[in-house]
């Protein structure tokens, strides 16, 4: 390396003198070689990160005997073994489709409710004046980090008393309640940013508070509401713990249905692998379609 530097410096003394800010040739060669190594390293990391999911996908496309006797990578040498049979069996059976439907029945209302109640409260905290507002908001912020585990036993008792235990409605309410602190926190901060003049102008035009809320605040809060919605949607869709305790065991959501299958792991990968993949389809679509909103939701939720 040093030789290269010397010959280069001797061969082009003027260039070296003129381009004072330029880095020495060794550094540039090292950077180029390093760049190659860096690229290879990152390609390897990316493959490494993809491998588990690819393994699941390919496993889900192999027959039960194949799964039991060999690894999914056999697919690369024998692509003919790929088959839709597992999916066909799973979908015709109706159990998985039913659970996916239950998951949707829980996720959609829980998301809409959090957005609706969160933006109402967020607006009140941002733009309405009432005694104890700041203290109340602090309480809500304090609730951000409360672990759901604290509520499992008491809420089970509470739901039992009012007939909500093991019902879809109960699961929805639980998710809504624990989604609210973050929703209120995020939306209050976003709404507070709306220029006051805009609201004043609308009021002068004779708009009431409710109209102001639906016509001005909600549309302007679009980006924050989208982030919140995506975040909450994925959180509820992917939840297993709360569903395990509060969901109707006769009509379990997909996570609980699959979890029951996991208990006998080993001889039912032909059910588990396609089932897990089906449960991932909706979150992955949401993720790829709304990456930007998801990322900003994740960033805002970094304190949660």
């Amino acid at each position, binding site marked *: 390396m040093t030789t290269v530097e010397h010959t280069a410096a001797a061969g082009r003394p003027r260039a070296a003198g003129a381009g004072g800010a330029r880095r020495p040739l060794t550094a540039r060669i090292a950077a180029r070689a390093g760049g190659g190594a*860096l690229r290879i390293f990152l390609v390897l990391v990316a493959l490494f990160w993809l491998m588990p999911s690819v393994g699941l996908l390919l496993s889900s496309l192999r027959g039960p005997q194949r799964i039991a006797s*060999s690894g999914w*990578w056999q697919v690369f040498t024998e692509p003919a073994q790929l088959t839709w049979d597992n999916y066909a069996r799973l979908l015709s059976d109706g159990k998985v489709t039913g659970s996916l439907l239950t998951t949707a029945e829980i996720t959609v209302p829980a998301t809409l409710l959090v957005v609706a109640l969160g933006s*109402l*409260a967020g607006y009140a905290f941002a733009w309405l004046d009432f005694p104890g507002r700041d203290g109340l908001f602090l309480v809500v912020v304090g609730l951000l980090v409360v672990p759901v585990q604290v509520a*499992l036993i008491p809420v*089970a008792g509470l739901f039992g008393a009012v007939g909500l235990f093991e019902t879809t409605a109960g699961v929805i309410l639980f998710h809504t309640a624990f989604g609210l602190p973050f929703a209120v926190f995020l939306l209050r901060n976003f709404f*507070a940013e709306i220029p006051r003049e805009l609201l004043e102008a609308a009021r002068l035009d004779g708009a009431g508070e409710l109209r102001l809320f639906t016509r001005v605040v909600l549309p302007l809060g679009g980006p924050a509401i989208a982030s919140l919605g995506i975040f909450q949607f994925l959180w509820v869709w992917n939840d297993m713990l709360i569903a395990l305790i509060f969901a109707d065991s006769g009509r379990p959501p997909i996570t609980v249905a699959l979890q029951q299958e996991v208990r006998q792991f080993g001889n039912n990968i032909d059910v588990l692998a396609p089932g897990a993949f089906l449960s991932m389809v909706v979150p992955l679509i949401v*993720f790829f379609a709304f990456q930007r909103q998801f990322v900003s939701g994740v960033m805002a939720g*970094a304190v949660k």
Partner: protein
Amino acid sequence: MSAVQVSEVRRRGGRVRRRVPGSRRLAAGFLLPALLLLGALVVYPIAFSVRRSLFDAAGTGFVGLDNYGAMFSDDGIRTALRNTVVWVVVAPAVSTVLGLVFAVLTERIRWGTAFKLIVFMPMAISMLAAGIIFRLVYDQDPQRGVADAVWVAVHDTFADPAPFPGARPRPRAALAPSGGGAFSTRAAVRAGSPVELPLIAVRPDDLRGARPAAEAAARPGAVTGTVWLDFTRGGGGRPDVLDRGEKALAGLRVEAVRGGRVVASATTAADGTFALPGDRAAGARLRLPAADFAEAYRGVDWLGPALVTPAIIGSYVWMWAGFAMVLIAAGLAGVPRELLEAARVDGAGEWQVFRRITVPLLAPVLVVVLVTLMINVLKIFDLVYVIAPGSSLRSANVLALQLFRSSFGTDVDQGLGSAIAVFLLLLVLPVMYVNLRRIRKERRR
């Protein structure tokens, strides 16, 4: 990052005094649904859990702090506690370091966005799905589990697999077991008289392509001999005699041992013969070492009691390193480029720039990421519940899982379950305090 944005928002919001006449009733209407739900399902449960944790399993007898004492004295729960500590220390740190490395490195490649997408994607899927994915990855059979397939491949590159696992001499043959899976001749060997070392119980698979064994030639000044499979296909062979057509065992290591030390060694040729220098080997005993017969390496039992927690932490890192990476990358975008360039012009190496400038500037983001992940890890449940097989569930136990089992499992003690819940809450109180102080400070400004 979020903290910075939020404080910006808050300052602007705080400067404007908002007052809407007669808005109290309106405010109540706007707030009521949210506050009702929060009160009934979040605030009331906290109070209930604190109270419940002071009562026994039946919920009728007051036991004071006994449930908290049980948390630290019960063996099973102590394991859970210890594992939770390991989780909280290791998982966030590893995720953050990886996130930092990825965030910094992806800035230098053109397909950085694609890379980030790949690493970030696992965050979108459920811990249940991730659990199933990693049950497959960690399958102990190297034929099926990719982790062990890779591990065994690497292992076998550095350590040759034994040529004839399971092979052994007949009882009362010239060879006898000499401990640890090796076989030695009963008597010392002499130069010039070939040694016959017959073995049996060789797997047909290991014999594929084997040549017929040959009698070793007697050579003065050398200890020669043959190792072969003493079994004639189709029958008719005599025990301990090299019959025609019996197969040679090639590639076996033969050692001459004298006084416990290996004085010479050789490897059998394709016809099963070997030769050792007579001056050293004569008078020694011959030994076929255990390495000739060891069972094939079966890989690591990832989900066994010893490794199950690190293995599950691995799956967590797979899910959450992307989170750290995205947050840190956003923070990195705010680092002034001129500062880094100036340092480089001053002759600082890339490592120095990273260590002395990038990391200190990112410190606030790193803290947010670490704390967020710690809170998240405290509540870890699904991954452990799904990945740990029944036999290792005890060794993999964590507080959130123990809470679930104490509260809703077979041997229910909701007093104990509540105590664990309150304990988890106590652990996040410092973070709650920091959050609240930050907001109040911003308000006063």
